[in-house]
């Protein structure tokens, strides 16, 4: 069992698998996103009722919430791969973490941007020091820090491990940061933001939101695997299988 696992944990073995998965995930993601867009714009009401009535602009929820979820989920995945890499010393795990980071950062930025565009009509301001927005901003800094540290170190092995350690430190600190922003006054610690519960949302809206989330998720798979392929190629430039793949196996090169 374990042997099989480690067989696919080698970059050379995973490269073709990733190549086959990218189109599958891309097409599925595209389908889901298009469906969600259709559903979100044509099958949903123009008003969001309830205690906090909102007009058409509530539709931003269809990209805002999925991207915010993805930004957090991808950070978790990134930290998990980092942890696995540090414990088992597998190079593919670090590559995976690196492949995820830019996509995660993009979703974090999207969540911030759409949050601002939603905040303006509903709160009357683009930016508010709302705990969620602020934590999302911190998450964005974490992604940037991860990528900046990785690219600042020339030795790829040190870069992998240092960035991985940073990701884990960030994972430990994020809840503390979120909590401290959420509750700046420990004497009077009520949640500032409105609570939202999935069950209160109309099913059409929920459908569009969840399909978009799934679409974004598959999109993340596709981009992460595509990026992973690039990372594997550049890292393994010297190895025989890359050369064989490009030029076809040559008997003369068997020494490598």
């Amino acid at each position, binding site marked *: 069992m374990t042997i099989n696992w480690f067989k696919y944990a080698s970059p050379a073995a995973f490269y073709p698998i990733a190549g086959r998965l990218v189109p599958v995930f891309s097409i599925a993601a595209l389908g889901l996103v298009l469906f969600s867009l259709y559903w979100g714009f044509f099958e949903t009401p123009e008003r969001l009722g309830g205690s906090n009535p909102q007009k058409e*602009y509530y*539709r931003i929820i269809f990209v805002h919430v999925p991207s915010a979820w993805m930004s957090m989920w991808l950070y978790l995945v990134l930290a998990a791969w980092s942890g696995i890499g540090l414990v088992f010393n597998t190079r593919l795990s670090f590559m995976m973490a690196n492949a995820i980071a830019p996509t995660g950062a993009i979703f974090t930025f999207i969540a911030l941007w759409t949050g601002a565009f939603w905040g303006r009509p509903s709160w009357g301001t683009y930016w508010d020091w709302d705990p969620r927005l602020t934590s999302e901003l911190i998450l964005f800094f974490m992604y940037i820090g991860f990528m900046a540290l990785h690219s600042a170190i020339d030795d790829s092995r040190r870069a992998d491990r240092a960035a991985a350690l940073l990701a884990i430190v960030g994972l430990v600190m994020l809840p503390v940061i979120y909590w401290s922003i959420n509750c700046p006054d420990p004497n009077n610690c009520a949640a500032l933001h409105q609570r939202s519960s999935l069950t209160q949302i109309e099913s059409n809206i929920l459908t569009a939101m969840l399909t978009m989330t799934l679409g974004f998720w598959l999109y993340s798979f596709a981009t992460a695997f595509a990026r992973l392929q690039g990372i594997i190629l550049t890292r393994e430039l*010297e190895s025989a299988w890359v050369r064989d793949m490009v030029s076809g196996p040559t008997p003369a090169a068997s020494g490598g």
Partner: protein
Amino acid sequence: MIEFFNQGGYAFFVWGAFGMTFLLLIAEILLLRQSRRTILTRVGRLARLRAQQPQPAEPASPQPEHQT
């Protein structure tokens, strides 16, 4: 149609949010494609160079002796 694009007067916010989202996602895809092409050309060129020199010298750039 116009009504749809108008989004009840909130067109700027709705399309601003959706526009940026898909702009970034598409940009990411395009960048990935481009970097993939660059890498593949580079790998291909390296392979061709290797093929031309049947007995390649040791890795082209002498790695400096590692210090600390």
